[in-house]
């Protein structure tokens, strides 16, 4: 009788009878599950995280297709429809003080917010990972120098440091993105340094070193891949913070400048008409809230999936 435990198409067949004639004729098919596959399975079971991911994908798609999907030009002024309430014909979410369509501005604004959020995280992560790898792996004076620099950056409240950098570079969307990216560097550097410190003493790294593998190759092939789990979780949660911080800077007049359709700018401009037309500032704020909530839900789900012991 054949007893077969089938676990899918890429299963590894283990013929227990081969080379052992005295054993019963049993064929066991066992699929070893990789940690990534297990994490994905856990993530798929987390309904909140999956819904958040779907929401973010749909939003990303909408913003990519902004030129096609946005019903109007986001900076086209139409004073006849000034502060038109939601539901007005041609203005499903109403119009702002210059009669610009809020829905179109939200769609285009989403494009900027997502770009700034992911862009800033990418920049912060690249430099943070690099510094963390060097500090953690080489130790000594390079570690001291990098970590003292990181300490100084962390001596400022995050948003204050971003404001200080903008004070120097001048207001503008690109400078705001750069400022929040610089503020984010210590976060990644510390995560990576912590992981590297424990990894560099492990046998597989010692083995690689002992057969003469170069430091660069050890870092890129052996150390970095093992830091990816916590990094991905941190980055997912960080995108939300970056989006909020960038919108906050624009709200202060230090980031994107009018007439750009950016959520922080929209909120700031809508404030003046909050008594008569609250939707002008409520809607962009709600958009920021929903995106950040989705990113946090997805980030939490991802963290639980990658490290189920952290669930508690």
């Amino acid at each position: 009788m054949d007893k077969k435990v089938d676990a899918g198409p890429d299963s590894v067949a283990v013929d227990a009878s081969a080379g052992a004639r005295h054993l019963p004729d049993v064929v066991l098919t066992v699929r070893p599950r990789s940690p990534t596959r297990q994490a994905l399975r856990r993530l798929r079971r987390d309904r909140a995280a999956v819904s958040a991911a779907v929401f973010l994908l749909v939003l990303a798609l909408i913003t990519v297709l902004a030129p096609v999907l946005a019903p109007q030009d986001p900076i086209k002024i139409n004073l006849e429809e000034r502060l038109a309430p939601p539901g007005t014909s041609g203005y499903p979410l109403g119009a702002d003080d210059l009669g610009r369509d809020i829905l179109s501005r939200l769609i285009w604004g989403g494009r900027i917010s997502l770009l700034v959020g992911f862009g800033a995280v990418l920049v912060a992560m690249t430099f943070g990972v690099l510094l963390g790898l060097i500090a953690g792996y080489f130790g000594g004076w390079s570690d001291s120098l990098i970590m003292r620099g990181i300490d100084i950056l962390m001596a400022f409240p995050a948003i204050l440091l971003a404001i200080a950098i903008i004070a120097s570079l001048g207001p503008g969307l690109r400078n705001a993105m750069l400022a929040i990216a610089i503020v984010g560097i210590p976060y990644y550097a510390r995560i990576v340094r912590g992981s590297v410190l424990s990894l560099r003493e492990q046998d597989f790294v010692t083995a690689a070193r002992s057969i003469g593998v170069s430091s660069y190759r050890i870092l890129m092939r052996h150390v970095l891949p093992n830091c990816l789990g916590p990094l991905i979780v941190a980055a997912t949660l960080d995108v939300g913070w970056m989006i909020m911080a960038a919108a906050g800077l624009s709200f202060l007049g230090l980031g994107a400048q009018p007439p750009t359709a950016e959520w922080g700018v929209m909120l700031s401009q809508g404030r003046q008409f909050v008594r008569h037309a609250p939707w002008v500032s409520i809607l962009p704020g709600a958009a920021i809230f929903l995106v950040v909530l989705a990113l946090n839900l997805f980030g939490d789900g991802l963290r639980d999936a990658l490290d189920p012991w952290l669930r508690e």
Partner: protein
Amino acid sequence: MSAYIVRRLLSLVFVLIGITLLVFLIMQLAPGDPAKIMLGTKATETSLAQLRHELGLDQPLHIQYIRWVGRVIQGNFGRSIQLKREVLPFLLDRFRNTAYLTLFAAVVACVVGIPVGILSAVRQYSLEDRASMILVLVGFSTPLFWLGIVLQIVFGLALGLLPVSGIHATGRDDFADLFVHLILPSLTLATGATAIIARMTRSSMLEVIRQDYVRTARSKGLSERLVISRHAVKNALIPVVTVVGMQVGYLLGGDVLIEIVFSYPGIGLAMVNGILARDFPLVQGAILLVATSYALVNLAVDLLYAYLDPRIHYG
């Protein structure tokens, strides 16, 4: 412990040097000649050269830095270009308002966040636990400057219950009036910190209530209320102290946005106006003051933590 205090104080000196260095460099990198900005349209080559010499701008960078730090230590933060007055007294006045707001928000965050965290942990997986953790997530994800506007619409404009801007009503400067003006901004500012403190308290409590000494307390017949209040909470709150301290720092930063929303005359409002008017002495002073108080709060928290947790040996 005393060795730890000395080490921590030394690291504070290092951090303060770092802060002054960074603030100095950031302002050096700023485009525009401060002398030109100060003199405005009246500038001539001779007057510019004279002012640059008076301000020491013709000196090498390291000399400028040392002189600037020397002046700052003596309490001379320079004169504001925009306000035409000494920066430090003005900023200290504004900083007092910011301190009120920060302290109020910190108290709200602790008074709400800690009990919510304890309740969630004690009734893990209950309806209350799930509901409060959803609220925590919402608190994390809400842009505070937007929440401020929503609260202004609801409590100020629609219900007419609370003032929506400023620090005092015209002609009044009593504490009751200040308190009423602080309610909406401090509630707004406290939201994120409340969420973080609640989450931290919950996870700290969950760890503590599984410890042997808590089981022992239960097994000797103490009521659940006593076990939680006398044995679990005290120990669970030790790590929360650090989080609360960190949150005070974040609140100091978050103040900037809230002060703009509520036109609250704090240091953040002064700083943003200073940046937009390119008033560098004012901006430099404001950043320096906030960053220094942040460093001092961090020091206080670290020392308090070392005092509260005798298990940790600082060597």
